[in-house]
C-alpha cells in the first residue's frame, strides 16, 4: 500500500469515544492487523481522544481532529485539539505529566499514567507538539510488519501416489482484503516445481468474484507452465457459480482424488 490519508473530525465529547474506537478498529481490520493489536490500538486512540477532550477542549462545540496516514509498513495517527480547555497544557507540560506519572506506582493516578503506559508500550513512538488547530497535536506511530496477519501460503501437499501433482487445499474463501494472500498463492503456484495441480474446494461453501478471478489467474499460470489442473470436492452451489462464468469449461471438475489422478494422467 502506498501513502494514503484519512481525516475525521469528531465533536469534543466523551460520548463520541465509541466513534473513535469503531473507526480505529474497522481501519486496522481492513489492514489485516491481528486482533490483539487492533484492540491495543483502539485503546491507544481512546486514551488520546479522552486526553484531547478533557484537557484540550471546552465542550461539544469544539472538535477533535484525527488524521491517519497509511504508509507502506506503518500507520501513523495524529490527534489534535483546539486548546480551549480550562487548564492550559502546552506540549512540554504534557511531556512532564506523562514522564512523572509513568514512574508513579499509584494505579489510581490515571490521567497521564494510562496515556503514558499504553502509548509508550504499544506504539513505536509518540510525539507531542503544538497544533495549528490551537491546542496540542500528538502523533503516534505503529509499524505494521509484526502485527499484521501473515498471508496464508497455499497448503500444497504432494501425495505419495501422485509425486508430480500438487494438491492445493483452499481452506477459506478469498475476499477483497486478501490481496497479500492471493499474491502468495499465485507466487507459490508459479514457483512450484509441479505442473499438475488439484484444487480441493471441500472447505468452501460459497465463492465470490474475487475467488473466481483467482481461479482464472491460476489456470492461466498453470497453462503457461504446460500444466493441467482439476477441481475436486466441489459443492453444487459453487459448481453452478463456476459454470455460470464458464470456468468449468476450461477446468475439469471431478469428484475425488482418484478421479483427479485419472483426469490428470489422461487415463
Amino acid at each position, binding site marked *: 500500500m502506498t501513502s494514503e490519508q484519512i481525516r475525521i473530525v469528531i465533536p469534543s465529547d466523551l460520548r463520541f469515544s*465509541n466513534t473513535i474506537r469503531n473507526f480505529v478498529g474497522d481501519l486496522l481490520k481492513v489492514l489485516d492487523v491481528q486482533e490483539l493489536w487492533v484492540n491495543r490500538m483502539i485503546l491507544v486512540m481512546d486514551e488520546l481522544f479522552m486526553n484531547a477532550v478533557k484537557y484540550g477542549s471546552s465542550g461539544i462545540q469544539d472538535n477533535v481532529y484525527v488524521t491517519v496516514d497509511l504508509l507502506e509498513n506503518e500507520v501513523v495517527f495524529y490527534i489534535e485539539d483546539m486548546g480551549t480547555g480550562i487548564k492550559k497544557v502546552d506540549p512540554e507540560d504534557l511531556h512532564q505529566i506523562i514522564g512523572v506519572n509513568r514512574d508513579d506506582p499509584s494505579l489510581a493516578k490515571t490521567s497521564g499514567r494510562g496515556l503514558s503506559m499504553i502509548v509508550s508500550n504499544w506504539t513505536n513512538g509518540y510525539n507531542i507538539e503544538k497544533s495549528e488547530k490551537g491546542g496540542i497535536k500528538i502523533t503516534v506511530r505503529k509499524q505494521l510488519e509484526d502485527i499484521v496477519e501473515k498471508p496464508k501460503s497455499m497448503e500444497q501437499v504432494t501425495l505419495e501416489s501422485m509425486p508430480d501433482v500438487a494438491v492445493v487445499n483452499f481452506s477459506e474463501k478469498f475476499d477483497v482484503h486478501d490481496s497479500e494472500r492471493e499474491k502468495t498463492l499465485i507466487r507459490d503456484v508459479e514457483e512450484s516445481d509441479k505442473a499438475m495441480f488439484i484444487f480441493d474446494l471441500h472447505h468452501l461453501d460459497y465463492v465470490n468474484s474475487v475467488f473466481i478471478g483467482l481461479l482464472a489467474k491460476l489456470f492461466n499460470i498453470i497453462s503457461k507452465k504446460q500444466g493441467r489442473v482439476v477441481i475436486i470436492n466441489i459443492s453444487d452451489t459453487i459448481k453452478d457459480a463456476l459454470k455460470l462464468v464458464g470456468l468449468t469449461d476450461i477446468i475439469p471438475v471431478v469428484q475425488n482424488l482418484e478421479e483427479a489422478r485419472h483426469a490428470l494422467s489422461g487415463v
Partner: protein
Amino acid sequence: MATVVTTEVFGIENYPSVKVVVFRGQIDESNLPEVSKVLDAFVIDPATKQINQETKYIVLNFNELSFINSKVIGYLASLYSTASEHGKKLLIIVDPKENETITDILSLVGLTTIIDHYPNLEEAIEVVKTDIEQDK
C-alpha cells in the same frame, strides 16, 4: 453512539456476603458513573451512608467485557483500596484465553498483581467459600 454496558448482579446460595457482578459490553468514562454506582453500593450503602455490612466479597466477572480504558482501571484500583480499607475483598474473573483484550490491559497497568484474579466463576467462588469457612 453511546457506550453500552449491562451489569448483572447475583448472590451465591448460602453465602449472602458474596456478590457477583457480570459485565457485558464496554466501559469508558461516559458510562463509568453507572457502573460505579452499582459497585460503590457494595462498600458504602447509599441509603444510610454507612459501610455495607451485608457484602464482604465483590466478584467482578469481566469475561464478557470487550473494552475498558485507563479511567476504568483507575476506578478499579480505587475501589480495591476502599474495599480493602473496609475489610472487604475484591476479586476479578478474567480468562486470558477467553478475553485476551481485558487481560492484556489489566496486566499492562499491573492491576493483576494487586487484585486476585481467576479464569472462571467456579474457581473464584471456591476460593471465596474456603476463605469464609476458614473465618468461621
